[in-house]
């Protein structure tokens, strides 16, 4: 297979210290079942799932425990067999509490017989789907929805929604995102190295569902092993047309979908638009693997690979753990800490969320947990903007973070909206290189939240007036 180079270079970007060496060579290790699993109902964008089990119920591995509560929502399944201890609010990595189902594993880890039964029927279904994708497309989409698959790169957008674009917006290109541009993290990298064939099969399935022609797998050049593994595995798909691996230059944020689409296709997603507006869908490699597992093996999404890394971790590892395992249990599996921990981040250090406590369950989107020592942490007081323009140079969305942050500090939301604050992807390149240490992306995030809240209130008021 020929390796392609990215044709275009999106604006801005930064080069933080990647520090991937801590875990990039560690094979994925499956973690034993913890004492307690807390499965949050809010693991995705959109409405939290509705619990369908109650205290005292016995559940089996893969059994539905939370049903999707709306169009943009996702199902949640029991990660193992056991007893429901409680249905109670529990903190999520993003902050606000959400209902969670506490399951005490019985240690037997028995699969739901329904899952086994449908797995047996899958070979026939896949053969039919390969023959006439149009007729069976909805069945496959239904499987993906029922398996509770969400975007595992971090945002957690329900995958079945992403894969059902309106008929007015045909998709011609599918990009499988293996860039993993966040420093420290290596879960996608390991998945590509160890399960390249499965990712390819998942990618071909997704391409069939979308009816897209072009399939590209995007990997940054700092992951040569993953590139080699994916290239080797692709040898088996010699007959597939228009399939290629694109090697991206290592730069943050190459893994952001709008930047990746531009780098590979030269298409620019319009302001306020979605990748489907330019005929493209971007899918994370972890999600692609989950799609393969759901369609071929009938397995719902109940586990994921998480990189537990950072210099205070005794043995940094790529852990395959059940959804709902607490961060503390996962850290104990990695031998606990050696040295002081100043900060724990859910996700990568650029876009991840700092956590107040490790007593938090993982979700379908926990790609990594990064611990930092006091010495690695810089705490600065911010000073006034010196108008150097570095944030403008670094912004991959061509925004002016310096101006925006001042507008938002002055609570001039209308002006910020006029300067397209809502197009910000919150990658943090601006704050990363601000010599005045201004909390630029923090101001913008908060301002975006205020503007969205204002819009919601206006919409509600308008709906009230009509009724």
């Amino acid at each position, binding site marked *: 297979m020929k390796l392609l180079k990215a044709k275009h270079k999106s604006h801005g970007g930064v080069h933080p210290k990647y520090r991937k060496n801590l875990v990039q060579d560690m094979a994925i290790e499956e973690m034993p079942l913890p004492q307690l699993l807390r499965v949050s109902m809010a693991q995705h964008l959109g409405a939290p799932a509705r619990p369908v089990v109650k205290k005292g119920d016995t559940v089996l591995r893969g059994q539905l425990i939370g049903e999707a509560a709306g169009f943009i929502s996702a199902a949640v399944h029991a990660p193992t067999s056991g007893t429901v201890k409680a249905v109670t609010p529990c*903190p999520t*990595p*993003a*902050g*606000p*509490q959400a209902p969670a189902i506490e399951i005490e594993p019985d240690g037997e880890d028995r699969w739901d017989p329904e899952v086994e039964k449908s797995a047996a029927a899958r070979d026939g279904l896949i053969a039919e789907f390969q023959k006439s994708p149009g007729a069976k497309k909805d069945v496959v989409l239904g499987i993906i929805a029922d398996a509770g698959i969400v975007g595992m790169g971090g945002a957690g957008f329900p995958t079945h929604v992403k894969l059902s674009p309106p008929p007015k917006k045909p998709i011609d290109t599918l990009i499988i995102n293996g860039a993993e541009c966040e420093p420290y993290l290596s879960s996608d990298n390991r998945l590509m190295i160890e399960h390249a064939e499965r990712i390819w099969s998942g990618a071909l399935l997704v391409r069939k569902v979308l009816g897209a022609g072009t399939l590209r797998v995007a990997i940054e050049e700092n992951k040569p092993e993953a590139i080699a593994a994916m290239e080797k595995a692709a040898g088996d798909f010699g007959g597939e047309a228009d399939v290629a691996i694109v090697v991206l230059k290592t730069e943050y944020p190459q893994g952001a979908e709008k930047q990746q689409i531009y780098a590979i296709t030269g298409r620019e997603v319009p302001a306020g638009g979605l990748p489907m507006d330019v005929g493209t869908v971007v899918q994370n490699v972890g999600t692609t693997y989950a799609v393969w597992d759901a369609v071929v093996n009938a397995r719902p999404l109940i586990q994921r690979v998480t990189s537990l890394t950072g210099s205070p971790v005794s043995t940094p590892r790529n852990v395959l753990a059940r959804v709902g395992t607490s961060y503390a249990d996962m850290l104990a599996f990695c031998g606990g800490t050696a040295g002081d921990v100043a900060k724990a981040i859910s996700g990568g250090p650029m876009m991840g*969320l*700092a*956590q*107040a*406590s490790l007593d938090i369950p993982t979700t379908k989107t926990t790609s990594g947990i990064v611990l930092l020592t006091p010495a690695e942490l810089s*705490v600065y007081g911010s000073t006034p903007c010196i108008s150097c323009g570095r944030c403008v140079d670094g912004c991959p969305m061509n925004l002016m973070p310096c101006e925006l942050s001042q507008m938002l500090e002055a609570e001039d939301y209308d002006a910020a909206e006029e300067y397209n604050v809502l197009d910000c992807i919150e990658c943090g390149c601006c704050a990363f290189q601000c010599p005045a240490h201004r*909390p630029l992306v*923090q*101001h913008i*995030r*908060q301002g975006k*939240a*205020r503007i969205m809240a204002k819009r919601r209130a206006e919409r509600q008021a308008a709906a009230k007036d009509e009724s």
Partner: protein
Amino acid sequence: MGALVTTASAIGGVGLVCAVALALAARFLGVEEDQRIEEVVDLLPGANCGGCGFAGCADYAKAMVIEGAAINLCAPCGAETLQALSELLGRKAEATEKEVAIVLCGGNATSAPRRSAYNGVADCAAAHAVGGGDKVCQYGCLGYGSCARVCPSGAIELVDGLATVHPDLCIGCGACVRTCPRHLIKMVPATRVVHVLCSSRAKGPVVKKACTVGCIGCSICTKLAEDNAIRMEGPLAVVDYSKQFDHPEIAEKCPGHCIVRHQTPNTEHRASLKEPAGTS
């Protein structure tokens, strides 16, 4: 001499022409404005707090005179101002009860510990957005002073990490109520004496871990208060501010130490806010 005359007459002439033009413009293009608007503006406090729902005092004055808006919407206005407005506009309205803001949380730096170090933007909404805030209590005052910054009368002070309203300075506009991301601030009639200073919806054991002055949901106060003046909303005792009541021992009998009983220091209306803050 000749040059002087020419210059003087030229400038004088231009001045005269302009004066005539302006006089004619004022005569023919002038907009008749209701004289009373200006008088009403003079009566209003001039704090532009927005509590009435209009964009400042002048806008409200216009609405009263032209659109016939109710004349009792101004919270900082006292009975005297209302009387004057009523005489001027020939309309009557009941004086609304003076309301002041109160922060329904008593967890300061000593009683309600923090669980992590937050070094982001010093704003309550921003702190709340990072992992649900840095306080152990998920409901209490974060103490970054967003309410104090929006208060037009400087009535909110951060005392030991807790937002505290000075009722005598509060003009009752409600700007703080709209700002608090945890919805801890409430407008209550200024004459109320008993307050439950806790808003935690968590159960007793959780509250006890988070705060030494939190409501543990024992419901003793609801039995002491007559006429359901305090009722339980889940695990939290909530004062029904529509009722006036008092009990001499209610604060001492609260095992959670979250009930306070005090006479609001100044229940009189501040007639005018036009003098600089601090002089009254």
